[in-house]
């Protein structure tokens, strides 16, 4: 598949900041894929995505859309959902769709947008009076009003309840099924895992790991996590196979050898009554790579 969006050596520093917000990020996004920028708050995700959108000018580096620097055509062929956006007051969702639709040479019919984003009864309402999930759907419809090739979604589910978040994921999948390329930023690893074909883990303005979510996990560690209450975790003097990490009141043991590890814990006199075993996640990966939590 061809590369639709490419960034080379992006650098951005804000005035008076001690470090670069974006510190040499390069990436390429394949047509029709969902590319995720995953990282904690303040990692530089939004700055990166706003440079990719052409909203911010980088201090160094360049962004190419289908091999050419971004220009007027790019604006017409992309749709953006900002992390927080205000809309003109006192206009209904339908009026906003008409207003934004008129700004583009090509537009998606209202009926199609309504179906795609499940707008239904929202059309004649004021966006300011919608719930979080409804508002995100309306904003997504605005981002899709020009039937774009590339859709940027900047933390689209932050602040939504789990049900609304899952509904939004379904919408994102149906957009992808229409052949659109999605560039998503998130600090929810399960969101990146659920939606993205490729993930770049961003920390302090740099990409520290990149690849398909499963490949990334396999590459950096295979195996599972054994969780025990901290008080119950008693390793024998000979040690346990794997790497033990303390997260709050829980001790997590990252291991490839579940049976050997459990044997060792029993030998050490650990109580296994509250034991949990789970697969490793991108969150564990982030912790392993940076020594810090994804959500601090």
């Amino acid at each position, binding site marked *: 598949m061809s590369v639709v969006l490419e960034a080379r050596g992006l650098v951005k520093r804000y005035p008076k900041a001690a470090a670069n917000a974006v510190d040499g990020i390069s990436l390429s996004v394949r047509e029709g894929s969902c590319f995720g920028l995953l990282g904690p708050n303040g990692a530089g995700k939004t700055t990166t995505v706003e440079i990719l959108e*052409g909203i911010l000018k980088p201090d160094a580096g360049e962004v190419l859309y289908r091999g050419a620097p971004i220009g007027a055509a790019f604006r017409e062929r992309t749709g953006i959902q*900002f992390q927080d956006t*205000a809309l003109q*007051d006192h*206009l209904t969702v339908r009026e*906003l769709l008409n207003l934004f639709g*008129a700004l583009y040479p090509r537009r998606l019919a209202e009926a199609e947008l309504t179906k795609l984003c499940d707008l239904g009864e929202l059309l004649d309402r004021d966006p300011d009076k919608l719930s979080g999930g409804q508002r995100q759907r309306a904003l997504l419809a*605005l981002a899709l009003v020009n039937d774009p090739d590339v859709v940027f979604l900047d933390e689209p589910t932050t602040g939504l309840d789990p049900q609304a978040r899952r509904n939004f994921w379904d919408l994102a999948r149906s957009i992808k099924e229409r052949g659109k390329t999605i560039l998503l930023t998130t600090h929810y690893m399960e969101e990146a895992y659920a939606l993205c074909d490729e993930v770049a883990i961003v920390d302090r303005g740099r990409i520290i790991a990149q690849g398909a979510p499963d490949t990334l996990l396999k590459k950096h560690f295979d195996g599972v996590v054994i969780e025990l209450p901290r008080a119950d975790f008693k390793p024998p003097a000979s040690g346990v196979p794997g790497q033990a990490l303390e997260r709050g009141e829980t001790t997590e043991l990252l291991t490839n050898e579940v049976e050997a590890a459990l044997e060792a814990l029993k030998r050490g006199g650990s109580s296994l009554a509250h034991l949990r075993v789970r697969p490793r996640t991108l969150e564990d990966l982030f912790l392993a790579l940076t020594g810090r939590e994804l959500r601090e």
Partner: protein
Amino acid sequence: MIGRFWAVLIGRNKEFLRDRGALGWNLLFPFFVVFGMAFAFSDKGQDVFKVGVAGEIAALPSGFASTKHLKFVPLGDLSAAQGKLRHHQLDMLVLPGKPLTYWVNENSPKGYLVEKIMLGTDAAGFAPERKAVEGRPIRYVDWLVSGLLSMNMMFSALFGVGYNLVRYRKNGVLKRLKATPLKAAEFLAAQVVSRLILIMAVFTVVYQGADFFLHFQRLGSLLDLYLIFALGSACLVSLGLLVAARVTSEELAGGVLNMLSWPMMFLSGVWFSLEGAPPALRFVADLMPLTHLIDAARAVMTEGATLVQVAPHLYFLGGMTAAFLAVGAWTFRWE
């Protein structure tokens, strides 16, 4: 291009019309001001007598010239001065010399008094020659209404466009629009036109509404008055745009707009005529768009001036509009 301009224009108009509070305020406030002033100044003139001098004030008889409560105003153009006398804007007009020629309005009680006062001074020794004119008085409110409506326009133009643009920038509406193919010039033109439509609609309602009760004396053409107000508000809207071109703080924008509007409110001749004002003040006033708007509108209202006669004011307003728009669009930032 027209499509994008139109879409933003319609959106902005709807946004404004549905903001009941702002709309009500925009309509009610000027009514309050016009009626309040009409009531406050009904049957009261200015409390000094105003004597026009067609020549050097120093050439007047010294005893007459030093009479208390008489204000002497030098006027170059004799026929314009006679016009003012006819409309009771002057209580008397004098041409110094021997004999001393003076004009009074037969319909003006104040003119009658000033004449009696003059004849009681050393001017009586200058063989005064009396000439009479006649004319219906122009009430203070006839004179004031141009200034009041202009002032209201100024606040609506400066704050309506300037403040709103800064609010849009601060809350991210502009950033969202920047992500579309909309061009800055299209967006700004829509903001200007939307506000102009509003201002002229408010002007129509307030002027016609107040006229129904107060029966303004308007000597010039209504169309000319409309054109002058349209050009004047275009100039003030553009000034608002210029102030808001890249400011991101509502407090700063508010401060700058206040700094511009308050001096204009007091120095542009809204309340009192600038005739006879010190040259320094007159110079400052001449730099203000509001002065030119008021002067032109008032000349049409109270002197029956035509557009040609007020052309210098219109050139000034037109030039300023173009300059404000050009610099405003050039320095404009979405963020």
